[in-house]
Structures are given as structure tokens and as C-alpha cells.
């Protein structure tokens, strides 16, 4: 029903994929085209998916996956709701907000066990604990004010004593001294600064009680009912991809740069980013239960933090059945 272009694109991807694969695979079976909506521009942030695609692990599972790039004006939820993407990469807070607006989403897997939000500062004027924020100027998007508020409540810090400067998402205001610190992801602006020779200090908010699952896989209840086999196949490919990623992040970075020559990616940056996101994505829990897994405890912790963000959710928002089938 939706978008003939999508199918055409799917065929293009299949052709491109087939070119990379041994002959035996392409003729094997007609794969089902599905789309995975990424949350941002192509980068090593999604390298597990690229590994799955390049190694034909989705093809093996009977899927022909198109990876739809995100962007500053490309919210993940609309394509997933409308069905043009089977699965989207979101985060627990955004998913909770969308569910509150009537979308029937479930979180079916969690790529980033630890939330990547961090406070970045320069070594000469470091912010190492939430208490250090008092009296400092922080550069951030005003849209993230609830995030900072939640951090303050969790750590008993006076929110009103922090001066918020609305900035673009760039390290420039910090580097030029306009602000004392930035609210950003552990894996992007600090990496950019490091590549530019500026060693930044980061304080991971997840280490101070801020528990929000990030880079979560979301699907609609309809898909969970009617398209289970495709969901299982998609997630099993992701799983294999991210396992391969964990064993060699440098190779994952090299593949990312090679697959997207027009994306303006820098290999050194991608390698460093790939390395820095490992502790966020892999833990004792994933070592034990596999990539993407989430425990009941972490769900409870998420519910608590989400409440501070003004989102009332129940454990029903999470659905482990796809992961169970993948692992089972």
C-alpha cells in the first residue's frame, strides 16, 4: 500500500547488496523488503546495522533491509506509525512522549544500556559532579531543560543556580568560552573536540542516576501482532551485527566510512566514536543475556527517571518477546 518508491529503493539496495555478496546468496530467495528508520545521519552510531547488511545476515534471514537515514528534521516516530518503516531507533523518553500522544509503540530492544547524555567541560574548568554545575553556564537546546531538571532532582542540586544558554548543537560555544559546559552526547561533541586536539572532561549523566534507555528499537503493536517473523529476523541481524561490532570497533568504523563515501565521515573520528560507545552499549547484562537485552530493574529505574521528566509509563511500554524469540 505505502510508497512504491520504497519498494524501488528496496530493490536498489538489494542490487547493491547482491553486488557485494557471493553469487549463491542472491538467487536463494526473494527477500521481504523492510525499512529500519535510523535516528540520525549515517555514522558508526549504527555500525552494527551496516555489519548486518554487508555480511548478508539479514539476507540470510529472508529480509531485504533499507536503512533510512535520520536528520535534524526527520523525527523517527512518523515513518514507524505510518508503516513506511518497520522499526525505528528512538529513546525511551521520546517513545514515552509519543505513546502519550496516542501512538501504539513498544520498546523491543535497547542498544544503549546507559544513556549517552553527558556534561562536557574543559579541563581548566571541569564539571565532574552534578554539584559542580551550580553557578555555571551550560549551553544546550532549551528543549532539553527537563533532562537537566531531572539530573538536578536526582542529585539534590539547585536547578535555579545553573544558567542555561540556548545554543546550537556544536562544541563551538564551549571552545570559545561562551559557556562553561555543554549538555551533549558522550559520543559526538567530546569526540569532535578530541579530534581537534581539545581534551574535554565528560560527566556521564547515567553515572548520576539518570536512567533512560537510549537508541531503543521501537515497533508498533500492530507490527508485533502481524509481522513478528520479520521483527525477529530484523533483530537477529542487528544482534549479529553488534556482536561483530564489539569484537572489532576499528573494522566497524572502516566499514562505515567505506559504505558512505558521500557522508563526509572522518575515519579517526569514527574510530574514536566507535570505541567510546562500547561502554554505553555493552555491559555485564548484555554479556550474559545478549545485545539489546533489558532487565526488569533497569525498566523500573527508567520508569522513575521518566516520571521526573513528566512521563508516566508502566512496564507495558517494554516488550521482551522479540528478544526472547531471537535468543530462544
Amino acid at each position, binding site marked *: 500500500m505505502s510508497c512504491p*518508491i520504497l519498494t524501488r529503493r528496496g530493490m536498489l539496495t538489494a542490487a547493491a547488496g547482491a553486488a557485494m555478496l557471493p553469487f549463491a546468496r542472491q538467487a536463494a530467495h526473494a527477500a521481504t523488503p523492510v525499512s529500519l528508520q535510523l535516528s540520525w545521519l549515517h555514522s558508526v552510531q549504527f555500525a552494527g546495522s551496516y555489519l548486518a547488511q554487508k555480511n548478508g545476515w539479514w539476507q540470510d534471514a529472508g529480509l531485504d533491509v533499507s536503512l533510512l537515514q535520520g536528520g535534524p528534521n526527520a523525527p523517527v*516516530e512518523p515513518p514507524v506509525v505510518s508503516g513506511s518503516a518497520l522499526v525505528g531507533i528512538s529513546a525511551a523518553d521520546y517513545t514515552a512522549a509519543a505513546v502519550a500522544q496516542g*501512538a501504539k509503540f513498544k520498546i523491543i530492544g535497547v542498544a544503549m544500556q546507559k544513556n549517552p547524555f553527558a556534561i562536557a567541560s574543559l579541563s581548566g574548568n571541569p564539571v565532574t559532579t552534578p554539584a559542580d554545575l551550580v553557578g555555571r553556564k551550560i549551553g544546550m537546546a*532549551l528543549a532539553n531543560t527537563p533532562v537537566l531538571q531531572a539530573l538536578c532532582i536526582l542529585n539534590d542540586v539547585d536547578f535555579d543556580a545553573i544558567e542555561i544558554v540556548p545554543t546550537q548543537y556544536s562544541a563551538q560555544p564551549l571552545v570559545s568560552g561562551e559557556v562553561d559546559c555543554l549538555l551533549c552526547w558522550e559520543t559526538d561533541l567530546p569526540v569532535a573536540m578530541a579530534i581537534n586536539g581539545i581534551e574535554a572532561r565528560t560527566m556521564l549523566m547515567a553515572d548520576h542516576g539518570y536512567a533512560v534507555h537510549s537508541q531503543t528499537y521501537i515497533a508498533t503493536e500492530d507490527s508485533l501482532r502481524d509481522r513478528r517473523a520479520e521483527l525477529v529476523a530484523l533483530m537477529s541481524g542487528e544482534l549479529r551485527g553488534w556482536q561483530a561490532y564489539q569484537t572489532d570497533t576499528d573494522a566497524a568504523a572502516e566499514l562505515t566510512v567505506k559504505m558512505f563515501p558521500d557522508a*563526509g565521515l*572522518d575515519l579517526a573520528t569514527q574510530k574514536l566514536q566507535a570505541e567510546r560507545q562500547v561502554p554505553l552499549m555493552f555491559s555485564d547484562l548484555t554479556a550474559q543475556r545478549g545485545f539489546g537485552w533489558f532487565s526488569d530493574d533497569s525498566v523500573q529505574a527508567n520508569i522513575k527517571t521518566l516520571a521526573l521528566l513528566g512521563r508516566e509509563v508502566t512496564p507495558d511500554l517494554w516488550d521482551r518477546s522479540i528478544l526472547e524469540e531471537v535468543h530462544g
Partner: protein
Amino acid sequence: MMRVASVGPPLLGGVLLLIGWGALAAVLRGGHLIAGPAEVAGWITANPGLLGRALGKTLTNATLGFLVGNLVAMALAGVAMIWPRLLNLISGLALVVFCLPLIATGPILRVLMGPGDGPQIVLAALAVYYTTLIPLLTGLRATPAVWLDLVHSYGRGRWSELIHVRARTALPYLFAGLQIAAPAAFLGAMVGEFTGAEQGMGVLTIRFMRALDVPALWAIAVAAAAVSMVVYGAIGAVARMVLHDRPPVILSPPRGKPASGLSRLSQPALLIAAVLVLWWAGMALPGMNPFFAKSPQDVLAALTTAPQAAATRDTLWTALTETAVFLLPGYVAGLMLGAGLAIALVLVPNLSTLVMPIAVALRSVPIVTTAPLIVLFLGRGALGTISLVAAMVFFPTLVACLHGMRQAPGQILDVFHIYAAGRLRQMVHIRVPAMLPAFFAAARMSVPAAILAVTVVEWLTTGRGLGSLMALSASVSDYNMLWAAVAVVTTISALCYAGVAVIERRILSVYAPEQVRP
């Protein structure tokens, strides 16, 4: 000697620009704000393939959008001339569509059109059609009454009027529209890439901004500006080749009485009805899920009967007042700057080699690249915001006024030459009055442009007002709030547009009665 004189000023202007750019970059070295000419040149020579492919992609989309947008504008203008009763409906609908903010339309276009270049082309077309339509409608009316009388005396109708008379007098205004469109199409295609495109200049801009790769970021900006300048210059050159007739004297008798109260009321009512019908029809398109595509009744319910309706109204009202504070000063400053610069350039033509490249660059480089510089010099307060809005608004006014002043009737200029009247006197008595129709066309089309500009600036720098509210609503899937904000933005644009049109009617009924329809 002649040749040296004509090459000298552009060369000088270019050299001055390069020196100024280099000096600015040297002063700000280390701040990661701006890269100098040498750094930019270095990056471009090191990455010709990457830049070339991105440029090719964005340029292709921009060109297609430019063609589609301008053809639609011409078709709409033609229809409005042949069936004058449709004029208000067409310009009203065109305004409403132009007012739809990118943050609302981008994701919907992506869902409707899927991956690929569709949304980029549509957004480029949307960025240009309005600024061509409005000057074109003005130009189609800038017709000497005697020429029309001649057509009528042969018993011919509106079609012949359009083909033989109006199309010809409208040409200068069409070229003004096309020149305004050149950088706008490029920027529109770039910003369209923010909706999830795989490659292009917009994608690279986002990438390099985050990577703190200042030379790369400015190389993209320079390339975008250079392409826009070349296209702007090329359209100007074509205009000079085509337009060799001296502008005629437009002597037009004042028209009859203004329309009755009833028909004045019926036109807005018709427009509102048309907007609602199109809105409902749009919701019926496949893929338009009610989760993100809200119908008029959804928005009405969110504002009136929903449990949080009062809170929604309060939020909207607060955002609206925050926006309004910057809107009017930014709009007026942009108009004055545009008209003032146009007058200065006609009085001192050599200035244009210095001013026009900067003007085109300001219009074609995404604000994300230049905003840090403006924030550095003018701060994040009112001055910075108003300046950014003015910077985004002044270009159409400048171009429209430049073309408008060229419409000073040749015979009257001859009379002034005979009496050896100076440039200033010519300006006051002939050129400024001749410019007025174009100026008011610019003033009308700048209304929605200013509102869109202020919302973008709010989103990126101040974090307040309607722009910020729309961005926040989209990020937390509050599409009721987003569409309510869109409705507010559109309504305000339409009201301000109508206000400017009233002032225009009063002034033009004296200076250019042919522009004022009975």
C-alpha cells in the same frame, strides 16, 4: 579604457571581500567560528570529490525545485490575470502554503514521498514560488492603460491582453523574482536534506558543524554562496540582454470606488473555506496517519474542548508574544535595509560589486553556519535576533527595489537629463515613485518570510517563541500543538499581509493606480 573601467570595480570588490574575510578570520583565529580563505581553499583542494558530488546533488535538486516553483508561479499568475476574480483566492492560498513551516512539512513530505530526492525538490520549489508570484502579479499590472485600450479597440479579450501586453511589461518583475529565487532554491534544497537525505551540501553542513570542522563547514558555505552568485549573475545577464526597451510611461486613470462591504467579507470567507477543504483533502492522502497529520477539527479540539486546552492556549499565547517582540522590528529593519541599499546602489553603482555578493551569500548560506558569528558580534539578545531576521528578509526587498527603480520611465528621465538634474533629484522624483509597486510587492512577500525567519532564529539561537515551541512539539510528538502553532503562524501572516496591503492600496492609488484593482 572602457574595458578596464568595466572590469575594475568587480575585481576590486572581489579583492576587498577576500581581504575583509581573511582579516576577520585572522582576528577570530582559535575561536572555531570562521575559516579563512586559505584554509577553505586548502580543504576544497583536498576534498574535490566529496564537495563535487554533494554540490552536484544539491544543485540538481535546487534546479528542479527552481524550475517547478517558478513555472507554478507563472501559471498561477497567468490564471489570476485571465480570471481576475480568482486573484485574491490564488494569492491567499499561495500565502498559506508558503507559511507552512519546514518543521511541520518536512517529515510529512518524507513519509509521503519516501527516501530519495522528492522532499528536497518540493521544499526548494516551496522556497521560491511565492517570491516569484508576488512580483510577477505586480508586473502584470504595470501596464500603460493606452496599450490595453488598443487591445480592447481590436475587440480582443484578456488572453490577448496577457500575451501581447502584460507578459511584456511583467518581464522585469519576473527577472526580479527569478533572481530572488536563485539563492532561495539552493538554500531550500539544502534545508530539505535535513529531513533524512543521504547526501548533499545540507547533510555535510550538519556533519561538519558537529565535528567542529570549521574549514569544511566554511568551504560548504563558500561553495553554496558561489553557486548562488553565479546563478544570480547569470539571470541578471540574461535580463540585461532581453530587456533593452526603455520602460514606458504608465499613465493610468484612478480606478472606480472600492468594493462593497459584502464582497470584502466574502473573499476572506472563500479563502478560509478553500484552506479548510484543502487541509481535509490533504489528510486523506495515503500514509497520512492521524498521529502526526492533524485535521482542522483536531486542532480546534486541542484549543477548545480538550482537557488541557487552556494550558495549550496559554503556551501558544506566551510563545506568540515572545515571537512578536522580534518580528516587527526585524521586518521593518529588513525592509528599510533592502530599500535603503537599493537606493544607495543606484546612486553609487560601484558599491554593488561589494554589496551584492554579500547579500547573495547571506541568503544562500544556512543560518547554522553564520549564526555563531552573528551571536558573537550582536549577542543572543534582542539585537542579535532582530539582526538575523533582518538579514534573512532584506534580500528580496533589495532585488525587487533594484528592478523597480529600473522601471523609471525613459521619457521622463530624458526630461530630467535635459535640465541636467542630478542623480539625487532623479531618485526622489522618478526612481522612488517608480520603485513603489515593487517595494510593496516586497513588503507583502516579506511578511511570511519574516515570520518564518524569526521562527528559525528562535529555534537555533534564542530557544524561545513559536519557532522553539514548534521544534519542541515535533520532538516530543505533540503534533496537536505543532499544528496549532502552524495555524497561528499562518493566521498572523495572513492578517499582517492584509494590513500591508491596505497601506499599499492607499499609497499606490496615488502613485501607481494601475496596481489598485477596483
